[in-house]
């Protein structure tokens, strides 16, 4: 851990919040993607069965 001196708060919060936002975005994106994939598979299965 480098010595951040009196600006430790600023630097750490900048890194913390940014990485958190990025992580949230990635998690949200992946979850949405997985859900969309599942929904599509379901409908495709159904439409194949009907066809």
């Amino acid at each position: 851990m480098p010595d951040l001196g009196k600006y430790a708060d600023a630097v750490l919060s900048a890194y913390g919040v940014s990485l958190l936002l990025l992580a949230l975005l990635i998690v949200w994106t992946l979850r949405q993607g997985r859900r969309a994939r599942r929904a599509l598979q379901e409908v495709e299965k159904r439409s194949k069965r009907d066809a």
Partner: protein
Amino acid sequence: MSMTDETSIPKRPSGFWSYANPVKFLGFSERVLPALWWLSGICLGVGLIWGFFFTPDDFRQGSTVKIIYLHVPSALMAINAWFMMLVASLIWIVRRHHVSALAAKAAAPVGVVMTLIALFTGAVWGQPMWGTWWAWDPRLTSFLILFLFYLGYMALWAAIDDPDTAADLTSVLCLVGSVFAVLSRYAVNFWNQGLHQGASLSLDKEENVADVFYFPLLVCIAGFVLIFLALVLYRTGTEIRLRRTRALQAREARV
């Protein structure tokens, strides 16, 4: 991915424009995405760790200079994301490729998060450097307006049911909003007042920041570019699947 074994796909042009075909696009993104995820992870990891742990403090800014590794790449990408959306919108307007419109839609949330990161890190950096969280300087101001445009853009997509209408209208909005994207990048050149840094990354070596900061910064920028690409590609795939689900459901509803 069962969409690939659909047989009734009409013949489309080859070359670059062939990726306008949703199926072809999905296949492509499926292939390159793993590499993109890994590369962006590596670049971000290396760049941020290098920047955070292994660079010296600046003689004036102290340790706050480390914020540069987040602030500059995210601000850069926030603006570039809008330009990417602009290009995608133009392609949609001119050639009416659905994938292009969906790519613009998919990029917006990524762009907002980049904007938020840039705003936050900038504010946190500004407190020690300028003595204030926020100043109404031209670059900051137009950047904030760009943020509002991102919100409006996403809200407009969400509000309109018909996807083609939504794509058209958001394209028009994107065009108009580009004014502010340009301003937030070049406002410093137009008005030379304001607190914010001018170009410090120009290729002209004289104006650059010192090398110790410069190289890790470049790696971080690469990381942000790559993660942006990965996210947009993945999200575009999601949008395509959602549209296909919708189309199939609409066909079902008839029966």
